[in-house]
């Protein structure tokens, strides 16, 4: 066991995979940094420090610093993958997916199906997402809901350094395209990571708190909001299951249904707006498959149906918080 920051878990895992398999290449804007400057390459090593040291070790053929061209970055990742490589591309912010959406949605996601199952597209597209930095409407968004809605993509949202390492290894070694969503507010969070070359299979949720009164379901940063709410409720003797989905596609339906069958009460917490969201998706699943177990209406804690606002007060009101989760939990618990 060692303690490691989330961002270092990302960096070290990619680095180790590059050592292990020379088909692994990385590409993205400023992932080297300082190219074509007096300060020289590696002047920064990626704006999130998730590729520091890569260029020195692996050189320009495998560490490809790109101009500002998201469409070409993602498209090239698709082409590299079709041609037998294992690209790990970075979008500097998940919001920039808008620029590259065709390459994700119409190309990478669909190659295998359109080609009759005759190809692999093992591309990993990493993207820092999420709010909390007063970075406003184009640098704060959550994008998992619409990626989850795209057949052909796997969508991963790790919440701890330990899971980053296991899930990222699985993503890079796996044969399908993976959208790897890293919450910006988690980069600086530390946690224990096990030694050894472990992977975490997709579609297997993690139970981070166990209890019999209520089920809380979340991903990414929202897991810690649920944990805080669960800890507050525990003081009143209320026990919560906190389910960290880890991946939204594939989805661990069983973990959710098994828990709700015991608790009969569900709160889903999701950083994106509610319409057509992960929260509505899971609520529908439970309403359909665990209807008889439910003792109260399902609650969803989402962002409102607005873009992400800039000012501190506005963004604070916008984002789901532990207090909002706790309040929703108490509504569900108090329902009769």
């Amino acid at each position: 066991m060692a303690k490691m920051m989330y961002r270092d878990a990302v960096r070290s895992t990619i680095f180790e995979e590059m050592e292990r398999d020379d088909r692994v290449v990385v590409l993205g804007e400023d992932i080297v940094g300082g190219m074509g400057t007096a300060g020289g390459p590696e002047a920064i090593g990626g704006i999130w420090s998730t590729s520091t040291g890569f260029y020195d070790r692996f050189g320009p053929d495998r560490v490809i610093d790109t101009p500002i061209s998201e469409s070409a970055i993602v498209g090239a990742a698709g082409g590299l993958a079709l041609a037998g490589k294992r690209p790990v591309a970075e979008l500097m912010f998940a919001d920039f997916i808008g620029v590259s959406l065709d390459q994700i949605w119409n190309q990478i996601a669909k190659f295998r199906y359109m080609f009759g199952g005759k190809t692999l597209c093992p591309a990993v597209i990493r993207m820092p997402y999420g709010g909390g930095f007063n970075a406003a409407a184009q640098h704060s968004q959550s994008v998992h809901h619409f990626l989850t809605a795209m057949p052909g993509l796997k969508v991963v949202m790790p919440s701890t350094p330990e899971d980053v390492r296991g899930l990222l290894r699985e993503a890079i070694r796996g044969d399908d395209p993976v959208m790897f969503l890293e919450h910006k507010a988690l980069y600086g969070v530390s946690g224990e990571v096990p030694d050894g070359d472990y992977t975490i299979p997709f579609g297997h949720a993690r139970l981070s708190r166990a209890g019999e009164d209520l089920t809380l379901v979340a991903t990414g940063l929202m897991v810690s909001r649920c944990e805080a709410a669960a800890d507050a409720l525990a003081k009143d003797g209320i026990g919560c299951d906190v389910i960290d989905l880890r991946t939204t596609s594939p989805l661990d339906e069983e973990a959710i249904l098994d828990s709700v069958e015991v608790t009969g009460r569900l709160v889903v917490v999701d950083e994106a707006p509610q319409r057509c969201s992960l929260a509505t998706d899971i609520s529908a699943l439970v309403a359909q498959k665990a209807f008889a177990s439910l003792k109260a209406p399902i609650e969803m804690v989402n962002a409102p149906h607005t873009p992400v606002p800039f000012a501190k007060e506005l963004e604070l009101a916008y984002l789901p918080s532990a207090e909002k989760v706790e309040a929703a939990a108490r509504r569900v618990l108090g329902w009769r």
Partner: protein
Amino acid sequence: MQLSREQMLQAYRRMKIIREFEERLHIDIATGAIAGFTHLYCGQEAVAVGVCEHLDTDDKIVSTHRGHGHCLAKGCDVEGMMKEIWGSREGLCKGKGGSMHIADVDQGMLGANGIVGAGAPIAVGAALAAKLDGKGKVAITFSGDGACNQGTTFEAMNLAVVTKAPCIFVFENNHYSEHTGFSYAVGTQRDIASRAEAFGMRVWRADGTDFFAVYETMRELLDYVRAGNGPAAVEFDTERFFGHFEGDPQRYRGQGELEKIRAERDCLQKFRAKVASAKLLDEKELDEIDREVLDQIEAAVVAARNAERPTADDVLADVYVTY
């Protein structure tokens, strides 16, 4: 020299306002008083002002993440902008947008932009609207040496050419896109203007740290575009005095680079030197403007600090007109 005394004084004042606005933000951001990502325009003032002094409110501009200078040059209210950057409800965008999304459509300022390369297609649309209106108005998009690599910029240039849109592509080459050097990211190993030329546009090039060069280049270029010749492009060689964003340690810079560009490529110093040597303006007049501008910025900061804060209820407002 076709500029009147008044025009020169106004241009100097505008550049000075941008400079002091940004220098002050640099200080206030370091104290943690202002949240979010802020990209300062210091060093590039002559471009925004040299371009926008030719425009009226019916001409449109579309800006970038480094937008404060464009906004101020196009006539956005100093206090309204400061309040916006401080996240006040009284800000130009009610605290919803912040530094990267300042806009004032009434002034013909169609928005700063957080997405690099998003502006150029929007400007083509505004130019097509101007063409439909037939009053000789234009639309201008500002793009950096980084944004010029985005497919959207290429598509916009071609669309403008094939539709003969009165659109002007102003490329501000400050030699860096974030931490990456221009010589790495622009593969032609040439300038940006030559790319625009290849799309079928007439192009101009000038020193973006020389207000008079920018102004005269734009006079010629605008005459050409307003006459109905279709789009045009111009590349200004310029400098950014601060980091990419506030907090950037700038390890990509060479030794002494910042000191050198501040000493040799400062558009305000160059303006002063020029008007002094040609005996166009009295130094005292400029000193007086400097004092007034500092007072104006201080007043804007005081107003911003004391302005009304938004509340949770404001989150839901202004998503739609009706819903």
